[in-house]
């Protein structure tokens, strides 16, 4: 059993709260993967989740857009995740996962562009909503590509296949796809684990830039990355949130011995 610290209100240091995870547990079948997670996600800040492999950080991230609902045998338990300001529990049975995914978008570990053109990849989030004018779609695709710092590189080949881009460009294409619908939160699931250092740098810059517009939750294997891009960091260990605090505090003066051992490389 890991000692779990409750999030004291002053951890967020006056930042507005965008989402509140309350005593959340999650089961794959009978296997309990998340244990009583309580956590607040600050609005228009970057919150990082770190921890050794299998600690449940990706599982927690995928609760936020109900990805687990796609597969049988998965179950959420506890107080759910409340999205503020209106305080809806996005894990509630009365909330359609599709609605959640329209408000909270996701960037995956490995770039997964559709085998369609660059333009169609980005436009897809708008297409599923229907009822948009062609000129609106064009404009919003351009905005999203600019937002993902990709516009200048692809503006002359919007109608060639997304798969023809480089790995880093593909990942930024996926960021543009996640951005086009003006989501309230973007989830990043180890977005740079398949990228080289230069492409990684670009994605990190992008994350730092995006947080002026949108709340970001990022899972990362790379502790330096968490230290570089995030404002708040949660350290997870065997399904529990062992520590959650401001990033500088976690990396300079962690309260939990486990956190200290992990960030100093003694395990994990």
């Amino acid at each position, binding site marked *: 059993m890991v000692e779990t610290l409750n999030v004291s209100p002053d951890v967020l240091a006056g930042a507005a709260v965008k989402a509140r995870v309350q005593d959340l547990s999650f089961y794959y079948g009978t296997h309990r993967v998340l244990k009583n997670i309580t956590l607040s996600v600050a609005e228009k800040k970057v919150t990082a989740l770190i921890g050794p492999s299998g600690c449940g950080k990706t599982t927690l991230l995928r609760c936020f857009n109900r*990805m687990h609902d796609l597969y*049988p045998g998965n179950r959420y338990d506890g107080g759910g995740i409340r999205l503020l300001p209106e305080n809806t529990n996005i894990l509630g049975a009365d909330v359609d996962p*599709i609605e959640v*995914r329209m408000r909270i*978008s996701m960037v995956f570990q490995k770039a997964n*562009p*559709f*085998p369609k053109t660059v333009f169609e990849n980005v436009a*897809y*989030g708008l297409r599923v909503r229907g009822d948009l004018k062609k000129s609106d779609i064009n404009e919003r695709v351009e905005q999203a590509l600019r937002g993902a710092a990709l516009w200048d590189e692809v503006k002359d080949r919007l109608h060639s296949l997304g798969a023809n881009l480089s790995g880093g460009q593909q990942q930024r294409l996926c960021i543009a796809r996640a951005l086009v619908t003006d989501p309230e939160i973007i989830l990043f699931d180890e977005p740079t684990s398949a990228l080289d250092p230069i492409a990684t740098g670009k994605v990190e810059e992008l994350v730092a830039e995006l947080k002026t517009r949108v709340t970001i939750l990022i899972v990362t294997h790379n502790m330096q990355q968490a230290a570089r891009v995030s404002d708040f960091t949660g350290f997870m260990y065997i399904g529990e949130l062992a520590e959650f605090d401001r990033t500088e505090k976690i990396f300079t003066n962690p309260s939990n011995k486990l956190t200290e051992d992990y960030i100093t490389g003694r395990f994990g």
Partner: protein
Amino acid sequence: MKIRKDIAQRKRTDKVFSLVGLIATLVGIVTLLALMIDLAWDGTARLNWNFFTAFPSRFPDKAGILSAWVGTGVVMFVTALAAVPMGVAAGVYLEEYAPKNVMTTLIEINIANLAGVPSIVYGLMALGLFVYKFQFGMSILTAGLTLALLILPIVIMATREAIRTIPGSIREAAFAVGATKWQMIRHHILPYSAGGILTGVIIGLSRAIGESAPLITIGALTFIAFLPASPFTGTFPFLSFEWLKSPYTVLPIQAFNWVSRPQKAFHLNAAAAGLTLMAMTLAMNGAAIWIRYRFRKRIKW
């Protein structure tokens, strides 16, 4: 040098197997080639314009395959029209919607078994169901539906195989922007698996095109000297489905009919009909390869 001896020994086994494999391959290819050369030898002389535009006749040199190739064409058309939507829908349902339970497993095993049922059994079933029960008669409609049932398992399995090659990450990407299941299928699963599905459809059709046993049980004619009614008419609504009720014959049955005649000249006609059938089948297989190639080129994960 024990090691070298040992390696030489193992390499000999390698050589022996590659030789056995080569012989096995050649048996297949040489047989097919011999068959084709023999057919071409006998039949080429009969392949002229008259052969394709004349009805069968009791004079071998005047007899043609007009009713047979038109029959084969329209029956295949009905077969494809029935088998493709049904097979694709069933494949998509089993892959995407069906719950993973005993019932689904039973259905899956059944479909796999259906693919191995002898075609004559389909003919007997169709005789009872389409000809007598539904009163479709000995018609193009009955033949098309029967062959559609025959190739349905092939289409279903090809659809499922094609769907399974689509990575889960693509599905998740579609769901993650708020697509519904049907949107995910309509915008992603179906377009990306279309190449594989079409290939399966064509393989199924090229099996159906050579079938004669089930069609004989449901009353394909062996001698017919008129064509089905035209689907287009001069008066409103300009479309007619009378042709569906028309009697028909198909190429394999025509060839069988000729080959069972005593006169040698009819045997040459049979060879020419066989050659035509083979050309149609090879053309379809070629189309399948081409379609698969085109789709693969466009889709990269």
